[in-house]
């Protein structure tokens, strides 16, 4: 996918999302005008309107630029290809996000310390740690220290 195609996809998605907000989400989830002051939907409508206008403007710019380039050079230039640093690594994102999402339910089920230690062991493994003794020491040390500080130092009700 070229940079331009990706940008068009993003701006198109934002524009569609904005329309959905203006037509459905904002009317459905904002209280009606109470008869005094300003309508509650004013700020959301203004901001989503701005987002819609800007994304449409960006789409128009990209389309005009595409038409002009197509006229002059039919081949897309290599610089227009997306930078590898900007590539989305969904698997990488998922393997860090999923344990984090599961941590809170796990803490509710197994308790702060066991779930926290298991989580730390897993995350260390995912971060490239392969020394078992270090892994255990770091996991137990951090979870234990945080539990002690929060439970007994700050009196926080733990999950």
């Amino acid at each position: 996918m070229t940079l331009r195609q990706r940008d068009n996809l993003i701006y198109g998605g934002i524009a569609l999302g904005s329309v959905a907000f203006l037509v459905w989400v904002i009317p459905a989830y904002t209280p009606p005008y109470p008869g005094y002051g300003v309508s509650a939907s004013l700020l959301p409508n203004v901001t989503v309107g701005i987002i819609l206008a800007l994304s449409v403007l960006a789409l128009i710019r990209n389309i005009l630029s595409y038409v002009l380039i197509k006229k002059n050079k039919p081949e897309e230039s290599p610089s227009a290809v997306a930078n590898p640093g900007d590539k989305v690594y969904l698997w990488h994102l998922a393997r860090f996000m999923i344990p984090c999402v599961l941590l809170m339910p796990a803490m509710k089920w197994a308790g702060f310390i066991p779930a926290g230690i298991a989580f730390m062991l897993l995350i260390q493994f995912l971060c490239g740690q392969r020394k078992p003794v270090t892994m255990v020491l770091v996991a137990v040390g951090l979870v234990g220290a945080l539990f002690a500080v929060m439970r007994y130092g700050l009196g926080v009700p733990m999950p």
Partner: protein
Amino acid sequence: MLEVIIAGFIDALHPLSLLFVLLGVIAGVIAGAIPGINGPMAIALCIPLSYYMSPVAAIGFLVGLNKGAFFGGSISGVLLNTPGTPEAAATTWDGYPLALQGRGEKALRMALYASVTGDAFSTIVLILVAAPLATVALYMGPPEIFALICLAMTIIAGLGTQSILRGLIAAALGVLVGSIGMEPVSALPRLTFDLYQLERGISLVPIGIGMLAFSELIIQLERRVKQNGSECAISFSSKPEDRFISWKEYRGLTKTLLRASIAGTVVGALPGLGAPVASFFAYDQEKKRSKTPEAFGTGKLEGIAASESANSAVVGGSLIPLFTLGIPGNVAAALLIGAFVIHGMIPGPLMFEQNAQLIYAVYGSLIIANIFLLGVGRVGLKSFCKVVQMPAAILYPMIIFTCIVGSYLAEYSVFDVSLMLFFAFIAYFMKKFDFNHICFIIGFILAPIWETSLQQVIISSQNNLFMFFTRPVAIILMAITFYVVIKSIRGSFKKALTV
């Protein structure tokens, strides 16, 4: 008035406040020294902890953290040629060559003294300028405040990203998220999607931690930060002239330090520019003024002095618009707004009337943090150098776990942890697609003030928006805003159509 000033400074000298400022400075230096961790990230992580402190201690702690991180960034820059923070990049150009010559300690001491000098200068300017400016700002009504916020967000959006369109979209998205919760006039829930947890609105903590810290860690891990214990191959010379900065050397750099401090303070006071701009600008100016510009980049003390004093002067400078207008100069100042609000204060000109004692206590904390930075830097320089060698495989899991616990800590809410992960997810894609997450956060923080001033304008004018034309300052500010937007959009069209 004198009693208020004295009471404020006495508050700052309370042993607990002193302790938290000291802890803030130490934590800040450590955070800054770790490549990839920066001041705003550390502030976002520590805001939940500030709930348990008094307002003076909390603000002092966060200010100390920010100051410490600015100096800390230079440690990894000088020793590893990897700046801990973006603003320390210019410091590495002369710091690392000095370290390679065995004079790493001298380079770090120069960075420390320059940081303290720049910081002291900007704090003095802040103390002298903020109160008179706030008096002027008190004459500003809702139309002027509304227009000023529009201008500030436009400038931040324009300077923070390569495309102003993306910056403005991010800022508008931030304002939209900021409008979730109770609507201020009718006090009815708005955009809550029938989730009762959203009725109180979204707090800064999950957004700050998720967008500034967690998403950044995920991206850094993606780049396979696997330097297990970045070996510090730098050796330290034992000769005193290679370790210390003599008084004569420091005096010889007075003009450089002064010029860079002025540049840093001015840049800090302007919304959106930030510390990296200040340090690159000061370094460049110093190079141009030098009789031996070719020596810059080979280990010249002037280079370190200019870069470090400029970036540290940004701290005080960025507090000027925060205290006088309630508008943050950079993301660290934006996070400080959140901290002020958490402790029941709204930054802005009224703070000088309503919380004058606290303002002077904050001034006191700023001065104390500077003194502590000097002491901590001198005493613990070699210990901090060891921090940069900590393996990423140990450090990053610890920070990830702290992010999760930190977002829970703010309101004891599991829902806040989910929100933190959601905003980290959003920020991941924003960063990948060059939508500035800083614009999002600043839009989010400014949303309530923006909405209130907009509502005041509409209600007081009885829906007549032409009332703007009776306010010359508001007209000028809005005109500048439209000029910046139209000029930037025209520029982006021109650029796209000529490629």
